[in-house]
């Protein structure tokens, strides 16, 4: 047998809607993930704009406080579980088999299932908006007892939606690990794998380790709400703080799940446009692994003000600060890769550069938050909001955009419109900073997060942030237009696409054929 069995069965995609519903092809499934993620990005984005519109000036103008709380909750959940995570899984589906020289993902039918659970899970979650008592309103971290004793009735649907997302993520992660460990082309040793593959291998491990813990904690919520247990109720000997411990044991690795693949994307893009090999490949791998391991022992830095024993505060403070070391290694390596390189500044590179600079700002504010005594001042203020939006928007989201522009010509065979891409970049870059930078100031001045109304002295910066949010939000329509027109037509892309590109995915023609490697490539 000289080709894969699949190739002898079918050469191209099936026609009609069945192609998307029944597909076992990693490229189709990657496309589904990416479009789903973009729809969720716009949905969660509309919620964010509603939040920002309400906060444009003090007082209640547009929405009532309870609905405001529903919006902050749904915005967070949709962006984390619906936009960022599926986008990375989509990129992994498209790129990992091509990067390691595999015929497809290891378990293609399960791959389809992992995706198709998501639209159902999010439909159920969005349906809660129309239920009696409204959607979940307890924040995306759903702390007990807000999410148990005081929750709206729709919390039960929320719990089952989280279970479905967890099933999807675990199966997706198992598939990615099996593909990377078992389907590499001959000669593709672990330490020859592209960094995107490495970061995803480690991310998949994190997903399998912590998504079940999330399932466990929502199950305990369910038991407390409906079956009379007292896990998070001190009246029965339980502890609401226990909820926070378990949640953040999931939650902190979760934030690295949302950033490690971004590190991988940026580590692919910067060498291409600097036309140099990545500086310190091995140290990048070890740094990623160190960050992943440390992520399991820092969770209580989200809980400094909850009343932890002093030893706990100190341990979690120092462990958290330790993460700055491997992260610093990464930033240093990206800068060193660019040093004396022949750099050009196409759209993916612009997004990657903005990532390096702005993610580092978010990293530094994170370091400030890690200092337990000063966190007593910052906790639950807009400073925290500024911090995690800096690592998630110009961090994770910019990296996803960078990856999308970088690989679009490989996916559809045409270049996107470079001018429009640059306009999109500059609007996003300016919009993001106008939105989130002022939040540092109002947070330090004491404005609490998750409030629909605020004291007068915060009015100016809030108005500025709202203007920025609308610039950022609407500039994403440029991206949508650019992608659609690139799929339809555009300058024909070569196999290499970019002058300085390296790796197996650039050896196959653009657009990548439906089945990329029927015979395994030899890697030297």
């Amino acid at each position, binding site marked *: *047998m000289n080709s*894969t*069995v*699949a190739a002898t069965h*079918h050469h191209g995609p*099936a026609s009609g809607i069945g*192609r998307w*519903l*029944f597909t*076992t092809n990693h490229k189709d499934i990657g496309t589904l993930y990416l479009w789903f993620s973009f729809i969720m990005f716009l949905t969660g984005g509309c919620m964010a704009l509603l939040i920002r519109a309400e906060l444009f000036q003090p007082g209640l103008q547009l929405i009532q406080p309870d609905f405001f709380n529903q919006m902050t909750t749904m915005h967070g959940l949709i962006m984390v579980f619906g936009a960022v995570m599926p986008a990375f899984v989509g990129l992994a589906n498209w790129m990992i088999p091509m990067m390691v020289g*595999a*015929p*497809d993902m*290891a*378990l*293609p*039918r399960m791959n*389809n*299932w992992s995706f*198709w*659970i998501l*639209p*159902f*899970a999010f439909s*159920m979650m969005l349906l809660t908006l129309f239920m009696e008592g409204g959607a979940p309103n307890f924040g995306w971290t759903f702390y007990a007892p807000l999410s148990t004793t005081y929750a709206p009735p729709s919390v*039960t*649907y929320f719990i*089952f*939606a989280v279970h479905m997302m967890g099933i999807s993520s*675990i199966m997706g992660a*198992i598939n990615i*690990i099996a593909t990377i*460990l*078992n*389907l590499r082309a001959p000669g593709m040793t672990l330490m020859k794998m592209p960094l995107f593959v490495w970061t995803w291998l480690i991310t998949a491990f994190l997903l399998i*380790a*912590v998504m*079940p*813990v999330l*399932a*466990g*904690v929502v199950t*305990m919520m369910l*038991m407390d709400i*409906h079956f*009379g*247990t*007292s*896990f998070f109720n*001190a*009246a*029965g*000997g*339980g*502890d609401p703080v*226990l909820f926070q411990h378990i949640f953040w*044991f999931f939650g902190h690795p979760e934030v690295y799940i949302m950033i490690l693949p971004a590190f991988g994307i940026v580590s692919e893009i910067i060498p291409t446009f600097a036309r140099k090999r990545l500086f310190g490949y091995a140290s990048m791998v070890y740094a990623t692994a160190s960050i992943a391991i440390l992520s399991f022992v820092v969770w209580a830095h989200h809980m400094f003000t909850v*009343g932890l*024993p*002093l030893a706990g505060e100190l341990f979690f403070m120092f462990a958290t600060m330790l993460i700055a070391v491997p992260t610093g290694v990464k930033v240093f390596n990206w800068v060193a890769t660019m040093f004396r390189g022949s750099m050009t500044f196409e759209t993916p590179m612009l997004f990657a550069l903005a990532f390096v600079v702005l993610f580092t700002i978010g990293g530094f504010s994170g370091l400030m938050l890690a200092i337990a005594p000063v966190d007593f001042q910052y906790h639950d203020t807009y400073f925290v909001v500024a911090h995690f939006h800096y690592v998630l928007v110009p961090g994770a989201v910019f990296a996803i955009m960078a990856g999308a522009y970088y690989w679009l010509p490989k996916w559809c065979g045409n270049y996107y419109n470079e001018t429009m891409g640059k306009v999109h970049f500059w609007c996003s870059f300016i919009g993001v900073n106008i939105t989130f930078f002022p939040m540092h100031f109002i947070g330090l001045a004491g404005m609490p997060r998750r409030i629909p109304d605020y004291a007068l002295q915060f009015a100016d910066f809030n108005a500025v942030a709202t203007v920025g949010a609308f610039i950022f939000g609407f500039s994403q329509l440029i991206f949508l237009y650019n992608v659609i027109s690139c799929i339809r037509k555009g300058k024909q892309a070569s196999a290499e696409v970019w002058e300085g590109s390296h790796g197996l995915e650039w050896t196959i023609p653009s657009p990548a054929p439906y089945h990329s490697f029927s015979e395994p490539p030899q890697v030297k």
Partner: protein
Amino acid sequence: MSTQDYQSYYVPEQSRWPILASISLFLMAFGAGTLMTNLSSESGGGLGVVLLLAGALAMGLILVGWFGNVINESHQGLYSPQMDRSFRWGMSWFIFSEVMFFAAFFGTLFYVRTLAVPWLGGEGDKGVSNMLWQGFSAEWPLMTTPDQSTFPGPKEVIDPWHIPLLNTILLISSSFTVTLAHKALKLNLRSRVVFWLGATIALGLVFLYFQAYEYAVAYNDLGLTLNAGIYGATFFILTGFHGMHVTLGTIMLIIIFLRVLKGHFNSDKHFGFEAVAWYWHFVDVVWVGLFLFVYII
């Protein structure tokens, strides 16, 4: 990894099973949500029960069809040794995810026992919470909860040296019998496979019977219920989820038992069998943890 097994990696054609499975998972989740939301209300969960059962039934049929496809493909010789390794990685990481699921509940137990309950009783510099329920004294098992009217503590807890000890012996023996069945399969001694697998299933069923009996005793005689404060909560979530996993494991054992009777598996290719055996060992190990930390200590 030789080039030869790489070249015959089987990528299945389009399949209807995953999307159907997503729909039935949605029916189950939505049904369970509706059922539970309406549990306490007057209307009851009629629609919820219907959706839940319909989803579960559909899911059962889908799994039969989906696994049926996989078995057929395997019998057609489409699976290379490399495919076999993908299945092995998949099952191993699935079991790891299950380990982490139980880790959340074990972590809960340890946290409550060593930190939360002593703090409620006034221990350490966080003992100020004792002000809420003055006179509450920490103990484990927690027989008297801070608020006895809402969460009446258990009168008594399960004695580890009767049913739990017996169940430990049953489950550990079943790990040996399933290993003996596997050894016999490797030697292609099929009647012995049937015997040892049958013994494993019987041990699993007896375990489940005793576990159900223990729950009945706990509810009827000991006042040990889900509502009995944190001891009851941790006891039932750990033993309950373990019991559900034993049930699932027993069903899986019955399926491979039937497959052995149908003449499936041969002495060197039988990953379906091994996956079930791995799963069975996993529930066994979890039980040892339960016996130690829930019942004895």
